[in-house]
């Protein structure tokens, strides 16, 4: 009988030994994406594998997790777990997650599968392939976790179709499309490092703690099941950065530029998380500002101190973001509240207790700039004129968010930036988004901006209502509009036996 391999040997055989010498094909033809970005790799063998998992142990380990996870989903479903959530408003955060974030897991799977083929180093290829499988698992388990809610609440039914078409979902969709359309190294800095390592805690911790605080055991359990995967992904993100920086000094300015770009794009994307934390969770976890301070300013600050020895600096515009943490959640929820007729989930005015919580958490900005908006909204609602905006908003060409962010030294003035390229004018919400366009205008002239697409007649019509119902496939009067008077709210009251 053959001697049983020890773990180290098995690992080597199942990863590094999967590579071979090319005898009749030029390596450059085999890995055509490896050089065009300007990144210089001198020695792939210096790559340190971050996962240290072989496929057979990976399957075993993940299968155990799946068994536990699906047992809890079953129990959740059999016990009508949806009745235990804090308030039906909470479920709207899940609708946003399923339409906006879960499809990104699928895009991450596609992206990692691609770079998992294209890297010349076998260690990096294996790590990316493993992460690709993780991401595919995440999208599947998220869909399963939320399928129970689909039986009882509106807005979950067509998440994948909506992700491809709905105006605000072009924000997360285009974020990932941008990363996937980049070269393999930029993809890794964008998703592996900037998103998974630097910013992912700001997405997952608030969502999973939010679920726990609001009685949503299905989502909490998914979070636990994904946590050990996320830890591996973070290790991969950090390994990529260190590897690129150690391989060649010419890589440093390229990597810095990508960090600047993807940090900015990431924080713009996380605006939806900011708004979820401050406005959509009936039982709050912490404010967005507090989360930013803990997970970026403290954790990220020490990370960038570590990277300083390679010549990497804090991301450009980190100071702007530090000021914006006082504003973005309020500005984002106002965008959605005023476009509540065109959103695939419900919006609402914060309760008096919530307004007071916001004043307490944002003593320098909330009462001065944002409480008066909600007082106006309340007045209008009391008159039977719930405020829905009647025209379509100008969008940022880069992040595709309505241009509602303001100047940090003049918070009641919208921040307008523009560039003229080949005779056409392009508009941006910020210096960060303008810089990204100016560096690669030929990429962003292709932005599929939902408002312009509607005007061009590419989204059905002629009216916005037709676009919403036919092109987006929203069930009007059910998925959209205010929480007050919604079928979700009516059903909840019936279940709970309240008038």
């Amino acid at each position, binding site marked *: 009988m053959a001697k049983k391999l020890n773990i180290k040997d098995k690992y080597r055989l199942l990863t590094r030994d999967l590579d071979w010498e090319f005898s009749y094909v030029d390596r450059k033809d085999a890995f*055509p*994406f490896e050089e*065009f*970005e*300007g990144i210089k790799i001198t020695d792939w063998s210096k790559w340190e594998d971050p996962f240290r998992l072989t496929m057979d142990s990976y399957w075993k380990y993940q299968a155990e997790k799946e068994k536990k996870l699906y047992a809890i989903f079953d129990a959740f479903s059999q016990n009508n777990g949806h009745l235990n959530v804090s308030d039906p408003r909470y479920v709207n955060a899940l609708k946003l997650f399923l339409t906006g974030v879960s499809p990104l897991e699928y895009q991450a799977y596609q992206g990692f599968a691609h770079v998992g083929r294209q890297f010349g180093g076998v260690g990096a290829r294996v790590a990316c392939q493993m992460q690709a499988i993780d991401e595919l698992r995440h999208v599947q388990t998220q869909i399963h976790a939320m399928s129970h809610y689909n039986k009882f609440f509106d807005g979950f039914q067509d998440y994948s179709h909506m992700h491809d078409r709905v105006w605000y979902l072009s924000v997360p969709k285009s974020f990932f499309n941008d990363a996937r359309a*980049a*070269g393999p190294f*930029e993809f890794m800095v964008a998703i592996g490092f900037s998103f998974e390592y630097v910013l992912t805690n700001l997405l997952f911790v608030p969502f999973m703690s939010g679920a726990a605080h609001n009685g949503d055991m299905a989502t909490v359990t998914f979070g636990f099941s994904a946590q050990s995967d996320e830890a591996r992904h973070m290790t991969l993100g950090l390994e990529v950065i260190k590897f690129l920086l150690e391989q060649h000094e010419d890589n440093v300015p390229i990597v810095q530029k990508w960090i600047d770009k993807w940090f900015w794009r990431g924080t713009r994307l996380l605006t939806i998380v900011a708004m979820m934390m401050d406005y959509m969770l009936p039982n709050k976890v912490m404010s967005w500002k507090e989360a930013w301070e803990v997970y970026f300013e403290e954790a990220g600050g020490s990370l960038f101190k570590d990277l300083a020895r390679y010549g990497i600096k804090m991301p450009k515009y980190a100071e702007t973001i530090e000021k914006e943490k006082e504003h973005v959640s309020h*500005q984002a929820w*106002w*965008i959605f509240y*005023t*476009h509540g007729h065109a959103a695939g989930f419900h919006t609402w005015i914060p309760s008096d207790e919530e307004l007071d919580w916001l004043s307490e958490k944002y003593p320098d900005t909330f009462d*001065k*700039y944002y409480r*008066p*908006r909600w*007082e*106006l909204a309340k007045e209008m609602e009391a008159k039977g004129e719930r*405020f829905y*905006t*009647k*025209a*379509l*908003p*100008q*969008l940022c060409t880069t992040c595709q968010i*309505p*241009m*509602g962010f*303001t100047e940090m030294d003049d*918070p*009641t*003035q*919208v921040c*307008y930036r*523009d560039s003229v*390229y*080949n005779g*056409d*004018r*392009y*508009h941006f919400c910020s210096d960060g988004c303008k810089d990204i366009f100016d560096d*690669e*205008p*030929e*990429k*962003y*002239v*292709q*932005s*599929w*901006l939902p*408002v*312009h*697409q509607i*005007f*061009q*007649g590419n989204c059905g019509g002629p009216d916005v209502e037709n676009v919403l119902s036919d092109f987006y496939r929203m069930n009007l009067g059910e998925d959209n509009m205010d929480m007050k008077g919604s079928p979700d709210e009516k059903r909840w009251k019936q279940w709970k036996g309240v008038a």
Partner: protein
Amino acid sequence: MPIHAITPEYKGEVLDKLENFNGNQVVYVGWDHHLMFCAAFAYPLPPEMPFRALLDDVMPEAFSLHPEFSKINWDKAEWLLDGQPFIPQLNASLIDQGIGHKSLLRFQTPELKGVQEAGI
């Protein structure tokens, strides 16, 4: 380099070129320091439309929800066209006074401070 692409001389398709808007051009109109409207509005308009029609026929539908909109003294309103001071000619067409495709018009009403004087 206008793009870092693997394809040499890569050119992106300009999705928002004027020809794609069926004879219209896009014009954005924003009211400075009035954030009841979360962003400037985007309008697809014929380039030959007189400025007066923009003011009288297009803008009121959305802007009039603001309690201060009816109080605006348009003779005193100050305008910016693509960031530059601008005096609109009411009877001239948009295009003849330099309001082109994807131009941004901003107006300012310094005597009106917004709801609760909070820039809303």
